[in-house]
């Protein structure tokens, strides 16, 4: 009974998702909202504002600097977490 109701709910939700997908913009549509506002602004102004020919670098490091900063913090946190969980120096000595 439980499995049957779960199946029915999954099918209904799946159909709803497929139905809502028809409202999405088409793949590589140049008039979709995502490529109308921010992207052209970055592509046109990157060289003018930052002198960096590679738009990926200027978006990553300048326009989206906060994002990159916390990505770096995440990697730092991962390294520290692995070290704290696993590292057990012999006789409690400090590692060299």
């Amino acid at each position, binding site marked *: 009974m439980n499995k049957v109701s779960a199946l029915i709910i999954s099918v209904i939700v799946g159909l709803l998702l497929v139905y809502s997908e028809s409202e999405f913009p088409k793949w590589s549509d140049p008039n979709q909202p995502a490529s109308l506002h921010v992207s052209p602004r970055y592509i046109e102004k990157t060289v003018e*504002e*930052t*002198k*960096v*020919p*590679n738009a*990926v*670098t*200027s978006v*990553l*490091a*300048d326009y989206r*600097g*906060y994002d*990159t*900063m916390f*990505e*770096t*913090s995440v*990697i*730092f946190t*991962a*390294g*520290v977490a*692995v*070290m704290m*969980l*696993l*590292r*057990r*120096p*012999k006789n409690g000595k400090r*590692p*060299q």
Partner: protein
Amino acid sequence: MVRDLNDIIVRTGARILIPFMQIYSLYVYAHGHISPGGGFQGGCIMAASFILLAVAYNLHESKRRLKEKRNAIFCSLGVFIFAATGLVPVLFAGNFLDYGKWSKVLFTDPIMARYYGMAFIELGVQITVMAAMVSIFLDLVTAGKHEEVFEEEKINGDNGRQV
């Protein structure tokens, strides 16, 4: 993987490869403004060179070149460089991470200051990624014991055991 791999072909190959990997990593970092690349990719290549040293030689050889303590300092130094680069503009009445204000320190126009600011933060990213990758690899592969695994193997005489 931490055991002494005494294979002349692997050792010679690694010895030839490692300097070029490190130079290439610095190239990927420095050329990131123009071509694909940057701190994350360069840092991973730099970490791979130290991991290759640990695989082809042994753990001691890798840790002799990059001491564990120094590695931990590098790991936090990178994030510090990033945050400090972002904080300097605040001193000159700018926003956080607004590299244009670096022009007052570097004596350039604000546009070139943004160019240099990106180079600084990519350097911080490179250092952190390199140190974190090496540290995670060495901790996972020896279950956090490092030299201890090596010494246990030497006492028991089972050098062939893969750890």
